[in-house]
């Protein structure tokens, strides 16, 4: 009995410590960005001017860049991740090909982001440059689109592995009921499996979005690091994470450093808000099954 109580206390302590860390991270971000927070306040995220020389700091271009790259990455990756999830969750329930595909997609998540960055820089950038020349836009090669493609590949395993799990958790008896009514596998996917698994799939999409939102290294290497407002998907730009990584070492003025950390604070808040919103949506869409 006594050891049980001690054990439980240890677990509580561990949980409380982690919760405390989140709070402390938030507080120390506030503290370190105080200079900038005081000077620019909420206008910081509405102003489009980022000029360290004249000490004018506004994060709107980076916020726009972050949302653009993450959303485009999500759009590019979704067809692939959902197809893989359906293939592995519905069509290939067992066997060699399933194993190979599962390992291969999961392995994508294990590749360090610096390697994605290099691949993007040496392989994708020339390719995008060619495309840009064909389209007649300025052939930077680096920019929003390039970063989005790299991110898309990086986040495929996040959506696909979660979607695969929730799809294979759809009860076999309702799938059988669908077959017994004369539905084909495709009809069962759209009529039964996807509606049932939608909240789980959404959770996977959200996780992928969060991953894309905060990814730093690979994006910094291929996005072009421009502090202007991105005007098209071919523009060099910066995301919130990439501008911090890019300018952190050269921020000699206090207000510059403080503004970079202030961006970090906003990144923290955005991620938090997205997760909160996502959880609400997941709850709303969850299939309610009454237990007997």
């Amino acid at each position: 009995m006594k050891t049980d109580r001690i054990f439980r206390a240890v677990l509580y302590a561990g949980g409380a410590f982690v919760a405390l860390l989140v709070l402390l991270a938030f507080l120390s971000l506030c503290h370190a960005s105080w200079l900038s927070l005081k000077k620019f306040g909420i206008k910081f995220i509405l102003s489009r001017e980022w000029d360290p020389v004249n000490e004018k700091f506004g994060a709107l271009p980076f916020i726009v860049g972050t949302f653009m790259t993450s959303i485009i990455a999500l759009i590019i990756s979704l067809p692939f991740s959902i197809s893989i999830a359906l293939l592995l969750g519905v069509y290939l329930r067992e066997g060699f090909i399933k194993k190979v595909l599962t390992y291969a997609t999961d392995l994508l998540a294990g590749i360090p982001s610096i390697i994605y960055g290099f691949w993007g820089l040496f392989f994708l950038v020339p390719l995008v440059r060619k495309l840009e020349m064909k389209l007649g836009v300025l052939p930077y090669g680096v920019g929003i689109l390039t970063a989005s493609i790299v991110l898309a590949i990086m986040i495929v395993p996040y959506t696909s592995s979660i979607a695969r799990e929730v799809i294979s958790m759809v009860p076999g008896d309702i799938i059988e009921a669908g077959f017994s009514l004369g539905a084909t596998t495709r009809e069962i996917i759209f009529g039964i499996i996807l509606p049932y698994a939608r909240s789980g799939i959404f959770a996977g999409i959200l996780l992928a979005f969060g991953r894309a939102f905060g990814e730093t290294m690979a994006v910094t290497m291929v996005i072009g690091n421009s502090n202007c407002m991105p005007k098209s998907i071919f523009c060099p730009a910066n995301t919130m994470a990439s501008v911090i990584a890019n300018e952190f070492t050269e921020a000699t003025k206090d207000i510059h450093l403080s503004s970079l950390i202030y961006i970090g604070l906003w990144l923290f808040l955005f991620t938090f808000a997205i997760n909160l919103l996502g959880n609400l949506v997941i709850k709303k869409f969850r299939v309610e099954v009454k237990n007997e």
Partner: protein
Amino acid sequence: MGDKILKIENFYAGYGHTWVLRNINLEIPEKKLTAIMGPSGCGKSTLIRCINRIHELNPEAIYRGHIYLNGKDIYKMHPTIVRRKIGMVFQKPNPFPTMSVYENVIAGYILNGIKLKKEEKDKIVEDALKKAFLWNEVKDVLHRKGTFLSGGQQQRLCIARALAMKPEILLLDEPTSALDPKATSRIEELIVELKKTITIVMVTHNIAQAVRVSDYTAFIYLGELVEFGPTEKVFAAPERKETEEYLVGKFG
């Protein structure tokens, strides 16, 4: 025995390298209820799952022989067509949890992409629910989720869902084994009414239930059809020793 709607000829079925059913020959009479009985694991569920070609969904499934529906070999038809003509109700009630009562009944049409006018749908839903003795209980909650009904109501909803496709045969795989006695007797009343208009093949464990509702009984033992005949006869004077032993409870 009347007209035979379904003929099973030299039929074998199993999983992997093992036959579960061997050399089944059975003629199912039209608009009667045929009960399939036998001890656990004898292959009775496998048999009815072969009749609507659900068995073959298992990647391990093997089968050979013929099953004729009105003289046509169902294994030469497209499985989805077979399954629309031969409806099935499972052991555990399995309404679609994402769909309302109404959508559950019409699910066969929704899933198959058959477009219907609102009035046609309303009529199919009402007819099927009335046939399943469920209309009065659910007519005011048609647009609530089907999973909020009681177990017995859910099972009748599943019967309505199968009936809505206007099948020629209805397969029932131990449809009351997950239900309480009251819900069971409701389902039995329903089945007795239904067999006037549709051929029913029902797997059951429950000997008393077979006596109460069936016209014919097939007894399967260790994968073989041991006895088949009018229910009174099979129960009163079984021809085979295995049948008799099962009926008096020596195994099962």
